């Protein structure tokens, strides 16, 4: 059976523009989460975020910027970067109707939307931008990527909370394996840094609470005894996926493969919590392992969901133990997102890109802020600095979302 190869990556994250900047930051175990300067966040429980140094006007025309939200700017920019990286020109290297786009996004374009809502209530209907409807909705990046790049094949947006990007990637892989497209841009994007966008995250109960005297970079502490929740961020990352055989025929460099995936749903009450034994998450992990045709002991590293939410951290640990058993004693687990923030729709694509690069270098990056393992955790956590473990071929990427969504991806070197 053919495989799904990753042949291009485009990224804009709080660590910088491009995969190199992201990897460098992660390899150095850097914290690039800062105090929010995009709006006055002093009244929020978590006034820190991963912010991207990206000025749309430097890359996109004014008439495009005015009709779209920042999340679309980031998406179009990183999609272009990914295709350029893969050396794919739509209409030349792939027919437009054989190219597709799969996007993960959670919140939509609130920076644009809340500005227009303010005008609605203060100035009336006529003051609202005619672009409001198409600027906010979560499928705006998908549509605009298609228009910008001339893509006319399968396109879809996935909204599954923090597992959105994982769904976009697995659907991209399925689309290729079913022969519905030959090249698929699969990834995710999020731009939650607006007063209302950030408020949505605050009221979700998922965010880390800032403590007096604590630096912004120290707030996100997955698996650490001081964990108190997630610090979110903005960013975008797209992968170019194509069937392994066609990538080989093109003679293009392959980063690695999407070897398998597994999904499950906790369906546990109350809505905002997770099934307390981790057994449903374990099912999704096991399905990803099985589908990729390897045994659990052949998995060399886990790029964890690592939300830093105590109950999620601990149940993720239970699930890893259940699936890997004794092998978990020597299975490095890491959450590099602790350094730059959980990027919501872009989180899973970023983890996949990091896993691919980590396997290329034989280095498992460390989890920032991990000083003392939280009680209840019995994992081989990578802390302090990156761990060199020699060559390994399979990495598990774990993602979870509100409502009990579990989506795991197996990344192969």
């Amino acid at each position: 059976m053919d495989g799904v190869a990753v042949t291009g990556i485009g990224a804009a994250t709080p660590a910088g523009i491009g995969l190199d900047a992201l990897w460098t930051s992660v390899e150095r175990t850097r914290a690039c989460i800062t105090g929010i300067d995009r709006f006055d966040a002093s009244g929020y429980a978590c006034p820190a975020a991963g912010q991207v140094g990206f000025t749309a006007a430097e890359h996109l025309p004014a008439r495009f910027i005015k009709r779209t939200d920042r999340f679309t700017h980031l998406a179009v920019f990183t999609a272009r970067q990914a295709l350029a990286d893969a050396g794919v020109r739509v209409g030349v290297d792939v027919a437009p109707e054989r190219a597709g786009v799969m996007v993960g996004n959670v919140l939509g374009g609130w920076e644009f939307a809340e500005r227009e809502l303010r005008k609605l209530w203060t100035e009336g209907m006529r003051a609202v931008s005619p672009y409001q409807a198409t600027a906010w909705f979560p499928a705006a990046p998908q549509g605009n990527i298609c228009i910008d790049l001339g893509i006319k094949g399968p396109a879809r947006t996935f909204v599954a909370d923090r597992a959105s990007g994982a769904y976009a990637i697995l659907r991209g892989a399925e689309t290729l394996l079913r022969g519905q497209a030959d090249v698929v841009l699969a990834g995710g994007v999020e731009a939650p840094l607006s007063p209302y966008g950030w408020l949505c995250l605050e009221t979700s109960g998922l965010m880390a609470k800032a403590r007096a005297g604590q630096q912004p970079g120290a707030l996100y502490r997955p698996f650490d005894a001081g964990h108190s929740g997630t610090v979110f961020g903005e960013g975008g990352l797209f992968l170019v996926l194509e069937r392994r055989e066609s990538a080989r025929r093109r003679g293009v460099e392959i980063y690695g493969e999407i070897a398998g995936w597994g999904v499950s749903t906790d369906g546990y009450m109350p809505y905002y919590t997770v099934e307390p034994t981790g057994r449903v998450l374990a099912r999704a992990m096991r399905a990803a392992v099985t589908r990729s045709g390897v045994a659990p002991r052949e998995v060399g590293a886990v790029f964890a969901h690592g939300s830093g939410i105590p109950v999620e951290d601990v149940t993720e640990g239970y699930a890893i133990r259940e699936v890997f058993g004794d092998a978990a004693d020597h299975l490095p687990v890491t959450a590099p997102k602790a350094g730059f923030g959980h990027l919501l729709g872009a989180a899973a694509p970023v983890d996949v890109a990091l896993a691919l690069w980590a396997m290329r270098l034989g280095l498992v990056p460390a989890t920032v802020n991990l000083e003392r393992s939280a009680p209840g955790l019995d994992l081989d956590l990578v802390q302090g600095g990156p761990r060199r473990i020699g060559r390994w071929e399979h990495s598990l990427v774990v993602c979870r979302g509100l409502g009990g969504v579990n989506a795991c991806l197996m990344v192969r070197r």
Partner: protein
Amino acid sequence: MSIRDQVVAVMSGLGFQLGELADGASMQDLGIDSTELVEIVVALEKHFAISIDSEVQGTVTSVGDLVSRVSDLLATDVAMKG
């Protein structure tokens, strides 16, 4: 400032380049779709304190048309205010 100059100024505030706004430039050449036309019309209405016919879609096909429509409305305005 002439009416034409003001129309151009309003449009350049919406991201258009001065050089591309010749009288003969068509909506199609400039890639102006129906939504952007609404944006331009609302901005012109606000700037000139006039009300432009909502069925401007088919009848305004160039920058020159826009300038004429605005000029006509302003002239009518003046005439009505006497």
